[in-house]
């Protein structure tokens, strides 16, 4: 999976505007639109580009903050009698929740991390309660912030 300047240029342009026409990008690069098209297809096939999306401003649709939910889980043997609670199942539950925009397993202080957009404190508590009710969740720690709500800083949608 080798990338050259042309690939990076295409990525740079599409990061700023995913709808930009390949013809325009090609013109600026001095190459044919077909080449840009092929490069885009290759980048997608290689998994460098996972897709494209619109960047929403959470503030404009009624969200006032973001929160990180740091989740601890029970070791699986404690729940031996219950159905198996794999952290993957918890992860699946998390990302299905409305308002949760990122979820991941982590190595470190906690077992899982979820980031969500929050309307107000009542909403924050609701989300917290919902997460706490997922089987296997032992403890939940919340951090909330109102700055830096750019969901797409630099390259990655977060």
């Amino acid at each position: 999976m080798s990338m050259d300047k042309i690939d990076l240029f295409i990525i740079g342009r599409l990061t700023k505007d995913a709808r930009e026409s390949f013809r325009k990008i090609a013109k600026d690069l001095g190459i044919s639109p077909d080449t840009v098209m092929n490069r885009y297809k290759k980048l997608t096939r290689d998994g460098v580009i996972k897709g494209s999306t619109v960047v929403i401003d959470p503030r404009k649709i009624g969200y006032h903050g973001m929160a990180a939910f740091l989740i601890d889980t029970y070791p699986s043997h404690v729940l031996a009698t219950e159905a198996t609670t794999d952290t993957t199942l918890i992860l699946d539950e998390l990302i299905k929740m409305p308002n949760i925009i990122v979820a991941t397993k982590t190595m470190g202080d906690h077992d899982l991390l979820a980031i969500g957009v929050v309307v107000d404190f009542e909403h924050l508590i609701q989300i917290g309660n919902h997460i706490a009710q997922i089987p296997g969740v032992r403890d939940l720690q919340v951090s909330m912030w109102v700055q830096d709500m750019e969901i797409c800083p630099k390259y990655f949608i977060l």
Partner: protein
Amino acid sequence: MRKYFRTRSSETKIIFISVKEISITMTLPRTLKKIDDTDLVIIRTLQRDARTNFVDVAKDLGVSIDTVTKRFKRLIRIGIVRGTTVLLNPKGLGFEHVASLEIDVDYPHITRVVDALAKKPEILICTPTLGRHDLFAIAVLKSIEDLGQLRESIKGYPMVRDVTTSIWIDEFRLCPENFEFNNVKKAV
């Protein structure tokens, strides 16, 4: 002691955070621009694939291409849509790891630490938070050694008390579609 932050957006929102008792005032009621079902279909379609041809969107909606173009431009004008972007796999760009950092700081210096961190190219998000720790940051890294170095450099700031790092295990899930538009949706 009291410290206040002003958000970077044009709307002034002042948050008072005091170290002893945390009291917060949010100036809540703000007029939000409303959108209708047509707008929502356009947003949802483009969320799945931002390069979707407006011809197809128009066909699905049974409206003219002009309408779709106008609606999309309006969504950008009123700020609900900030633009479109490609979703990149950090690994594809050589960033093998994503990590979150929770940082404890001597409170009076918090803005200085935030500014210093935000300048680092590997930091995606860095923000003061309410919670057990003072700052929350997300970083992309080429190797575990880089995480170690980042941690060391942050711990090097005299006002930083502690840094907790968590590495994201593979396959983290992103779901920008989980935004709800209830607050701005016109009542039918």
